[in-house]
């Protein structure tokens, strides 16, 4: 079925559009295979609304029959058609925007609604907009992605001694969700890797995630071992982990399940690394909520934020009840724990939960943000996302099929990536000078991951992307973010590189609701946007007066520690 067949009514005149911060507008609504467009036709060239249909999470329609009313009430429609009824469509987007369309004509309204319903839930990746997006300023010949495993290895000199790039997965047969190339200990050969992979769920054998620049200790990630009820062992898996330790006495396994859950996993063929078989590894259990529960937490939070009631008690109890901040708390805590193992105690860490595709990636990437100054730059952060989420096989398509408003039955939706962005925002709020990118970047990513013109977040793994030719037929978001001329909005004006680890406070008082995302479409967030503009203008004034080059000089020379501030001031960290 062609996409256009879903469209029964392509154009409706005299539609009234209501959106936050704007007065209602009257104009023409158009629907195309991938977009909803609206224009009041006053200024010919500009659209008042250009909405990716993929961005629509849920719609609600209500139709009113106006027959029996004198016809002059609809004179505004210039008598083009006999209109005696009208309908209202409420569009709830995945980026949490809510729009309302008042459409004259019941039939048109129902047609539009059914087209949106059909087009917003397309399952076939090939039909999605990134495969059709062909802006004139971008060429498909350009590079796709920022870096590959090989390039990363080449750039990271500290890996060369004891680590190597293995192409054992080049045909995705060893682990379907891993990329072709992964980094493993030098002394472990590919045969061993293959056997170790058979012992791990989904073949996700332990691979290198990060090597600490200070002491060469590493973060590894994998899925759970398949020990099962009768406590199977796998010599190769044990040797692989032994090789990771490389003579050091101790390593930590951070299991993202409770000890009890890990026990229970054995009944279904999973399990954990027992002390007897992995004698040099100490296991720590840190429970993380996952899957459906996390999605429901997001739904509850968004619902709470949409309740504009004035009762403080009700708000706090809803916020508490959503548990979202508790998830932020545990993610940052575990990441802090992993980082502390490396930095303070000088031990390597293996992180896994069950599948190793969600919380595992969350924890490893947050730990890197805490430890590694390179990952706190704009390009470094995007590289981190590419390495730890896209190449590492986070199933974006399954996880981000729906967002918080959808009425559809939950399948495999889970906002792990959104949780990462939230935790990153918390880091940025606590260390406003340490990250090179801005909140705007995080917000953009939060939007793009659910609905995008770019192919970056399509599919569930490298294998799928390869099969569908994503890299050949779509544009890359990360490339575009780095290249774009309006890069300034994604930069943090106060950025001051620090080589030190940034240790987040995880005291509940220190964690806040991410108003920029969850209250994005309220006036509350608007004032803060204004303040941020003010901040930019101050920094710009400074740069103008100082002259760019000299400014650069001063910025890069002032790295001496400063007198500590007397009081904790976070009045401006809301920016």
């Amino acid at each position, binding site marked *: 079925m062609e996409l256009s067949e879903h469209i029964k009514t392509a154009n409706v005149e005299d539609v009234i559009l209501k959106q936050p911060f704007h007065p209602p507008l009257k104009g023409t609504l158009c629907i195309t295979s991938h977009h909803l467009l609206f224009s009041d036709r006053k200024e010919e060239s500009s659209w008042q609304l250009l909405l990716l249909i993929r961005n629509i999470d849920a719609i609600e329609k209500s139709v009113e029959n106006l027959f029996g009313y004198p016809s002059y009430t609809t004179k505004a429609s210039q008598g083009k058609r006999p209109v005696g009824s009208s309908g209202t469509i409420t569009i709830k987007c995945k980026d949490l925007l809510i729009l309302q369309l008042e459409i004259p004509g019941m039939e048109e309204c129902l047609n539009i609604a059914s087209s949106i319903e059909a087009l917003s839930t397309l399952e076939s990746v090939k039909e999605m907009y990134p495969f059709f997006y062909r802006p004139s300023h971008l060429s498909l010949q350009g590079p796709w992605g920022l870096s590959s495993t090989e390039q990363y290895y080449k750039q990271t000199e500290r890996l060369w001694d004891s680590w190597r790039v293995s192409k054992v997965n080049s045909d995705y047969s060893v682990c379907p969700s891993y990329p072709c190339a992964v980094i493993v200990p030098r002394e472990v050969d590919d045969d061993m890797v293959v056997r170790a992979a058979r012992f791990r769920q989904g073949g996700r054998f332990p691979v290198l995630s990060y090597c600490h620049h*200070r002491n060469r200790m590493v973060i590894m990630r994998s899925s759970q071992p398949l020990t099962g009820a009768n*406590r199977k062992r796998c010599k190769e898996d044990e040797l692989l982990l032994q090789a990771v330790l490389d003579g050091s006495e101790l390593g930590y396994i951070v299991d993202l399940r*409770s000890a*009890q859950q*890990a026990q229970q996993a054995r009944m279904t063929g999973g399990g954990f690394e*027992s*002390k007897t078989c992995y004698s040099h590894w*100490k296991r*720590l259990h*840190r429970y993380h909520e996952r899957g459906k529960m996390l999605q429901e937490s997001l739904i509850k939070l968004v619902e709470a*934020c949409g309740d*504009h*009631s*004035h009762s*403080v*008690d009700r*708000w706090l109890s809803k*916020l*508490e009840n959503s548990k979202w*901040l*508790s998830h932020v708390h545990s993610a940052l*805590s*575990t990441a802090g*724990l992993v980082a502390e*193992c490396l930095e*303070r105690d*000088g031990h390597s860490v293996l992180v896994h939960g069950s599948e190793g595709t969600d919380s595992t990636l969350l924890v490893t990437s947050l730990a890197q943000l805490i430890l590694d100054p390179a990952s706190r730059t704009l390009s470094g952060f995007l590289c981190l996302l590419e390495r730890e989420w896209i190449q590492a096989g986070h199933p974006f398509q399954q996880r981000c099929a729906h967002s918080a408003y959808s009425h559809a039955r939950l399948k495999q939706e889970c906002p792990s990536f959104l949780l990462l962005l939230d935790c990153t925002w918390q880091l940025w709020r*606590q*260390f406003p*000078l340490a990250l090179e990118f801005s909140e705007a970047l995080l917000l953009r990513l939060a939007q793009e991951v659910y609905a995008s013109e770019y192919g970056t977040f399509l599919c569930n793994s490298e294998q799928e992307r390869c099969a569908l030719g994503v890299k050949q037929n779509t544009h890359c978001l990360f490339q575009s973010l780095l290249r774009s001329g309006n890069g300034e909005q994604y930069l943090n004006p*106060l950025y001051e590189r620090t080589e*030190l*680890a940034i*240790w987040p*406070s*995880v*005291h*509940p*008082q220190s964690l806040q609701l991410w108003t920029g995302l969850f209250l994005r479409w309220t006036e*509350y967030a608007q004032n*803060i946007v*204004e*303040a941020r503009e*003010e*901040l930019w203008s*101050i920094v710009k*004034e400074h740069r103008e*007066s100082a002259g760019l080059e000299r400014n650069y000089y*001063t910025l890069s020379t*002032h790295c001496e*520690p*400063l007198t*500590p501030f007397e*009081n*904790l*001031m*976070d*009045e*401006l960290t*809301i920016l």
Partner: protein
Amino acid sequence: MEHVKTPKVENVRMIDRLTPRKSTVGTLYLSSTHTIFVENTEARKETWVLHSLVSNVERLPTNPSGSPLIIRCQNFQVYRLLIPQEKDCLDVQASLTRLSCPECYGELFCFFFNPNLKKDLREKAWGFIDLKAEFSRMGIPRNLWQLTEANHEYRLCDTYPSELFVPKSASPAVFVGSAKFRSRGRLPVLSYFHRDTSASICRSSQPLSGFSARSSDDEQMLQAIMKSNPVSEFMYVVDTRPKLNAMANRAVGKGYENEDHYTNIKLQFIGIENIHVMRNSQQKLIDVGDQASPSMSDFLWGLENSGWLKHIKAVLDAGIFIAKAVAEDGVSVLVHCSDGWDRTAQACSVASVLLDPYYRTIKGMMVLIEKDWVSFGHKFSHRYAHLDGDPKEVSPVMDQFLECVWQLMQQFPCAFEFNERFLIQLHTHMYSCQYGNFVGNCQKERRDLKLHERTHSLWPHLWENRAEYTNPLYRTNHSQTQGVLKPLTTAYCFKFWKGMYGRAEKSMGSNQSPADCLNAVREESQQLEEELSTHQERLAQLKEKKAPGERKTTNSLSERVRRPVPNECELGSPLDYFTTTTTTTTTERHPPSFTLPLEPAAPPKSGDPDALSACSDFESGVADLSSHSSSAGDDAKDPDSDEVVNTNA
């Protein structure tokens, strides 16, 4: 000094509860005014705590490592000490308990505090805030309002200032009669005049109406207030109490205005709870901030349970109602509660902040506090327990006003000239009695204490250091700065004030501050500009001279203001993500902060060796890590930013 039993205790340990590694050993000194802790490190870092700031001193049972002592301050800072000898601990506790509760005004610190100011300068300092000038700034039309001498020598009302503004149309007989009909003689007088609409905010105490009493003088007084706003046909009477409380007061001969007796008034109840409810609510809030390692749910639940933010919202709602009436409807408002010195002061001053951009400046905020709080007889010494007295009189009234301003700052980051630090300073000084401004309960009492001769004024001191209290985002011509503020009051707009209530743990205060950074950027730009102009001048000179030899221009980069780059020790020292129970220094045992509450203490199943190992494995992992000496070396350079409270020369 007679109350100091032990002036010096050695080998005292100052405990950091969140990061036990950061605890330090030092010597504790007790002076007649301060507790001073000097670290045994090279830097000899000092922590000063003013006795009058101490709210309570708690001693925990002695354990093998010593006697723990917890000093809680009224500005919500908490110091945890471990004193080797129990006897010393008892002495310190007894001394501090006595010293923190002076029995008469003469014992207050402000009478001893001497910043070496000459007499004439001291007098000038007391004239820094001039309320007469403030009333003329408001642009009060002389044909509608007049300054009355009726309260000269506090004859009319002993808790009011001596100078009062009343409607010109009200005769002395009317306002004297009105004063008789108001609780404690606090008659309706002008607090703020809004030039744009000619509407005004007046304040009073409750009328002595009971069930049926009326006073034609008081009725005429309100009529006169309404008439002084020529365009409006009615006025609001805002009773800031819950209606039920107001009705209960009728039984004791007080109450509220009967709408049948007063022509053209509209009565509005706002529902701010009384001082006792607020005191309990704040105590619950402090307990929330004081929890050692709460889970997110504990915290949010505690916050909800305290009801604090609900009360803050009620105060703000009152201000918004008044501001809207005055600015949008152009209707004058009379505000009262019971006595008209707590909730009334809150409501009037919040409304003023919303209405007038001047009160959002540093000077304006000082003026506002001087006007609505100090001069109108807010009972500072009772409310903030300056002296040992009735604990039922204590209540965080001003705290709530300051917090309302802070909540507004969160919504309008560019609208205020001052920053959070300014509010916190004000809060501390309200309690500390280092300066004479907030001593006593009304103007008359202050005059009798001769505060202007015997103590110093806070305002010039704050003004001199205003650079520290300036919000870098403030610009007089910014859209948020101008006109009337219209804040949202949706529940999610109200936040926990971490800067105020989250100060129990010093290791939490290690955030980077963008405000400081911005201020430094500004200063730096200025310097660069100056530098540029001197270079240009020199260049011009050189050109004139056509000097062939190139003179090297001096590079003064190194002299420039330092931008606040994060302190190495702040960033470089992790919190204890393993936070442990192995610290032997406290008797309190806290669960590790990074352990999730969801973590079940899985009981080992019998006959399952692996389960057993899983469990012990976990435990030993914790113990092992915490016993490790830090290898990252951050301990060595660990002089954490410490708060020096009121360091005095």
